[in-house]
């Protein structure tokens, strides 16, 4: 009997993934978020908050590993891609259950991808390249492209505006029932109070070790509650007092307070993303390249970042579109990265025949660091000789105004470093700023069509060089994000979209 028991235990040790050993299931955590997500349908929004919450309930065919490489999630393996890069054969994992108990088939996947192409922003971005999506068996499907389009897998792997797989009978828009395949399922949503997720017992994790968003996803916690706390100070106090187990988005100046807390500790995501000044290339003074160059030369990124983030630990003065550590990192073209030289900028303005019209800069105090950067930028632009009209709006107003090319010259936003450069907003011709000219297409189109990663990395050097020569956007630098985790929480990975599978808590 003892021998049998020892055998069973040994077998269990071999079968169970090493990371899961010793992780006792249980516990409930409160995750403080910056607000209520506008929807629980991750196809319908590109908002990070939507991705953070819904990635626990819905899954995509592919996802990203620790190094932002695409790996399979609901797909059994990476797809088989034809030599011309136009045909993607995808095999699904077997016996995957939806939260309603039904089994996922290729019919669900095909219908879901079609829904994604028709309603999701990223799906619409891919749709013009896609000829057909069809089932080739119960658990296999084929995507046929009109022309090769390398970013397709990254788009399919993204967790917001996401190509989630839904049961084909539940594809209403707006989504009426929240039924996915994820390790957690929705139990209750009380808007502006909490979103309660509970473990989905029918979930079968992948067999690989956890790797970024991929590999085995184990629902160790019984419950995850996402609590909207829009006030930044209240989030901080909740973290310090121990009310929240994980607290998203805390201002960098509170780092020392968090460090001194007995209940929580800081989680620094380094780097999180980049603030950018997008220039209007459709209408107004910034349609002229010389004035865009003048802005590039006038601005001093270090002063702007210092004003915005205070602590130098929280930013890096870096012109590369992808920081070191990303396969896309290159120094091509960054000699044009802002030198903070208003005099030289003034000369460029004279050559360009600047007529003294004010530069209309749209910014929002909903992201305080945008506003602080805008103030410093305005001073540098004034020193160069620009008249500046700084227009401060709430974010909703700004997003509406920026859609109208007649209303602005520069707007300020920020974004993470997407796994594929094609997912950057400015890569799309229709993104506000409307960078849509021959120089861009000459650099971007070969990059989008090339299926081989190594060749794409080389081609991206040319994209970045063109980006700096054309100056459609001024990249200010890199910044880090600060969050907090309770000292009782284990195995949380710093991420732009923090996730809580494979996470455990001492609070039972």
């Amino acid at each position, binding site marked *: 009997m003892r021998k049998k028991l020892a055998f069973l235990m040994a077998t269990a040790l071999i079968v169970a993934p090493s990371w899961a050993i010793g992780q006792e299931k249980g516990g*409930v955590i*409160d995750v403080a978020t910056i*607000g*209520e997500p*506008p*929807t629980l349908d991750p196809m*319908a*929004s*590109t*908002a990070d908050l*939507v991705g953070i919450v819904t990635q626990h309930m819905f899954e995509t065919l592919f996802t990203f590993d620790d190094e932002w490489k695409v790996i399979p999630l609901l797909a059994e393996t990476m797809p088989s891609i034809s030599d011309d890069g136009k045909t993607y054969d995808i095999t699904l994992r077997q016996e995957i259950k939806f939260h309603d108990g039904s089994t996922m088939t290729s019919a669900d996947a095909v219908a879901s991808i079609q829904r994604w192409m028709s309603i999701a*922003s*990223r799906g*619409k971005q891919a749709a013009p390249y896609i000829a057909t999506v069809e089932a080739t068996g119960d658990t296999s499907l084929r995507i046929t492209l009109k022309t090769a389009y390398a970013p397709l897998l990254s788009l399919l792997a993204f967790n*917001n*505006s996401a190509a989630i797989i839904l049961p084909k009978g539940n594809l209403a828009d*707006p989504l009426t029932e929240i039924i996915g395949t994820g390790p957690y399922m929705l*139990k*209750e949503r*009380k*808007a*502006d*109070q*909490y979103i*309660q997720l509970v473990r989905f017992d029918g979930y079968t994790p992948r067999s690989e070790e956890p790797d970024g968003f991929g590999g085995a996803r184990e629902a160790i916690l019984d*419950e995850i*509650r996402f*609590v*909207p*706390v*829009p*006030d930044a*100070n*209240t989030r901080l*106090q*909740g973290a*310090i*007092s*121990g*009310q929240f187990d994980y607290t998203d988005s805390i201002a960098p100046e509170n780092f020392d307070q968090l460090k001194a807390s007995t209940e929580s500790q800081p989680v620094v995501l380094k780097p999180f993303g980049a603030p950018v000044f997008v220039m209007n290339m459709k209408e107004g003074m910034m349609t002229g390249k010389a004035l865009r160059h003048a802005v590039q030369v006038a601005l001093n990124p270090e002063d702007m970042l210092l004003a915005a983030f205070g602590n130098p630990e929280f930013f890096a003065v870096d012109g590369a579109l992808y920081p070191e550590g990303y396969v896309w990192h290159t120094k091509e073209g960054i000699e044009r990265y802002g030198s903070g030289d208003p005099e030289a900028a003034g000369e460029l303005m004279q050559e360009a025949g600047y007529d003294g019209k004010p530069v209309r800069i749209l910014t929002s105090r*909903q992201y305080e660091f945008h506003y602080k950067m805008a103030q410093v930028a305005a001073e540098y632009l004034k020193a160069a000789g620009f008249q500046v009209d700084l227009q401060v*709006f*709430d*974010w*909703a*107003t700004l*997003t*509406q*105004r920026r*859609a109208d090319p007649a209303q602005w010259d520069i707007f300020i*936003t920020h*974004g993470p470093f997407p796994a594929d450069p094609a997912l950057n*907003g400015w890569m*799309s011709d*229709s*993104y*506000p700023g409307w960078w849509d000219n021959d120089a861009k297409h000459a650099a971007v189109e070969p990059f989008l069509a090339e299926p081989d990663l190594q060749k794409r990395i080389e081609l991206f050097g040319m994209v970045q060089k063109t980006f700096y020569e054309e100056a459609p956007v001024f990249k200010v630098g890199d910044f880090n994000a600060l969050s907090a985790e309770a000292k009782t929480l284990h195995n949380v990975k710093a991420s732009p979209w923090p996730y809580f599978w494979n996470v455990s808590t001492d609070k039972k």
Partner: protein
Amino acid sequence: MIRYILQRLAGMIVVMFLVVTIVFVIVRVTPGDPAAVMLGPDATAQDIADLRSRLGLDRTLVVQYLFYIGQLLKGDLGQSIFLNIPVGTALLQRAEPTFFLTIFSLLIASAIALPIGIYAAYRRGSLIDQAATTLAMLAASIPSFWLGLILMQFFAVRLNLFPVSGYGGPGSSFGERMYHLMLPAVALGLVSSALILRFTRASMLDVLGDDYIRTARAKGMVERKVVLKHALKNALIPILTVLGLTAAVLVSGAVVTETVFGLPGIGNLVVSAVLRRDYPVIQGALLVIAALYVLINFAIDMLYLLVDPRVRY
């Protein structure tokens, strides 16, 4: 009397109609777009236009207005764009925290302001009167949300006696939910007490100098009876007015305090709806708030009848 009530009701309908129209226009002319907020930062102009069309926001203002009035006449406040539930349901869900926050704040404010206000008037010029007047001035000049932050820092973070924010998690009991209201109620109650205290004191001072008080004293009536029965009863009308107005302000959502403490009340709903440009919720919530203001004012006028037999309508 009945004629007066009917007149007031007719007036209320006119006020409501004006509120509906003004709010509808203000909300629509304010820049910002629910479709852009909903679709997120990377949405294209075409995505936004598609969603606007689906939400009916691409129709002319007149068509939208007539459609909205038609809905209201059927008793339908519309559907929240973001919450995907009827506006009436959203308001009902938020009513509990706001209602009890109002009650607790008023109780705290009254418990502080009425006895001190009466005593300060009775002992006019005394040390207690001066201290009460000074403290009331101080309390009136402190924003409730700032006081809330101080209370939060001390009682929730340092002493860990109260939660920092929220209204209890899933399955929380009524008692737990009320416990979450304590700090914001104290913050609002303390600040509201200042105004009530000053009105109580002033009103009592007016009455305490009247002839009938002197007569009561001359007849040898016990001092406590003179103050609490004769003087207070006659001083109640202005006190009731200020209590009613305070209640109306609180019930319409102590906007900033609810936001600071993460309370899912009416004020919080309005703030979120404005930031998201959830037009139906903004319109519905402001309509209900206006109705509550009007009804509370009406109720106060009716209470005058009970308190002062000389009042006739």
